[in-house]
């Protein structure tokens, strides 16, 4: 009968949907993740209750809470230290991740203070099982376009950003060049000292 056929199809549909959905949920799309994070960030920057110089700290804090979970700071620190990472003890690694996270937080959250209507567009993404690249462009209010590529690493289906490449300049590689150059001449302790002074 027609009716029972429809029922059967529906049953199969529901069964497979229920069966598949946990896997579907686990599989976040990197492009979507980046786009949604940007949108959430922009929503905070545009929020009327947070506009104004006296709200700077509150706005920065909200933005940091919203955006930081999308980043994998440990991966960033590891890549920024490069070959020197594995020579470090677990405590040193932990300290370094904290220091590096602070640098990124202070400089890049601070940059949002001058937000004035810049737009972000995600152009395309590609990924394999564990790595993804999301290409986006920032359109300034002057009409200039800046290419911004996000590099993501997957950890059990959760995509996290580990590098941001602006006009071909990788943030992590830029810091690695600096750290390498410092570690060529001085000790790791001195590097940590210089990073602390920076704060």
């Amino acid at each position, binding site marked *: 009968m027609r009716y029972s056929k429809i029922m059967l199809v529906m049953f199969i549909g529901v069964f497979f949907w229920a069966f598949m959905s946990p896997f579907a949920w686990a599989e976040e799309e990197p492009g979507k993740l980046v786009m949604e994070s940007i949108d959430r960030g922009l929503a905070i920057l545009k929020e009327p209750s947070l506009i104004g110089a006296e709200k700077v700290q509150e706005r920065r804090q909200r933005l940091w809470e919203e955006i930081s979970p999308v980043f994998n700071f440990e*991966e960033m620190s590891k890549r920024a230290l490069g*070959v020197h990472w594995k020579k470090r003890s677990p405590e040193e690694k932990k300290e370094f991740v904290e220091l590096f996270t602070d640098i990124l937080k202070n400089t890049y959250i601070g940059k949002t203070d001058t937000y004035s209507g810049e737009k972000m567009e995600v*152009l395309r993404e590609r990924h394999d099982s564990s790595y993804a690249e999301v290409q986006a462009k920032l359109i300034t209010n002057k009409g200039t376009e800046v290419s911004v590529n996000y*590099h993501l690493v997957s950890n059990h289906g959760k995509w996290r950003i580990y590098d941001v490449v602006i006009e071909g300049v990788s943030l992590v590689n830029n810091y690695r060049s600096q750290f390498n150059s410092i570690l060529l001449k001085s000790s790791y302790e001195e590097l940590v000292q*210089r990073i602390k002074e920076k704060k």
Partner: protein
Amino acid sequence: MRVSSLLTFLFLVTICLNGAFVWAESSPLSNRQSDETTSTGKKSGMDTNIEGEKSVSSGQTGEIVSENKGSATNANTESEKLEPVSAGQPGETAGVGKSSVKDTNIKSEKLGPVDVEFETTFSSTETASISDPIQPYNRSIFVFNDKAYYYVVKPVYKGYNKAVPEKARVSVRNFFSNIAMPVRFFNCLFQGEFKGAGTELARFVINTTFGVAGFSDPAKSLFHLEKQNRDFGQTLAKYKIGTGPFVEWPFIGPSSARDTVGFVGDLALNPLTLLSFFAGPFVSTGVNSYDYMNEVSIDKGEAYESITKPAIDPYIALQDAYVQNRIKRIKE
């Protein structure tokens, strides 16, 4: 006193035509095909891992594809771009990353390949560095440039920003950029980009007429003809001339031996240089430094600060940003 120091500055600045703070200039995403890859010799087998690209905003993707110079190597170059990422794949997910509970059993299995990953991923970027035999000299010039920026250039352009609205400054940029069209046109030809040369020619005709002497850019806004940022340094790179050592020039900023030659080549191709023959060096100097100041006022000053301010070693940060940006632009 103030006037005379300003004049000295203007004179020094003549040499800084369009090469200053190059990394800040934006350019559309386009094909990358060049021998100067960051990760040389890492092409093996990785390509197969890469899934087809997915469009997120479908309208945008269409545009990009048309921007690409219509070559058939698209798929190939796309995957090439992903290489630095995928180079260290086998070990990437390994233990060093997350310390979450789920990870623990994988940790023990995969600790081995971590070393391999470090070697592959990191050595690939090592090749992106530049030789810097005259670093002490370069560093002193960098300190000078940095001081000149904060004490001279920045105050001047801040005042200029207050006096001239942003729209007008962008128009001025368009005007100078339109005049410098032969630089891009000839470098397109030298690089065998005949389509790009045609685009530049069409842009020049449209912008000079409809764009009122180049002050606006209808070629881009109405006809979607993108500016082809081609310079002589790129041309030399395409002819397999090596980067050479790093040089920090007063006022011009970071450069390499090759790009310095390229810079001079571009000067020779720029009609503004002819101005000094007709209108005398004083006018030419004034015009050039005005162009320079205008560029800095729009975004190059900001770009300089955003690279050097968060840096632990600003000199290296700027040098690395220059090198990375050049590699990208040469690949385009």
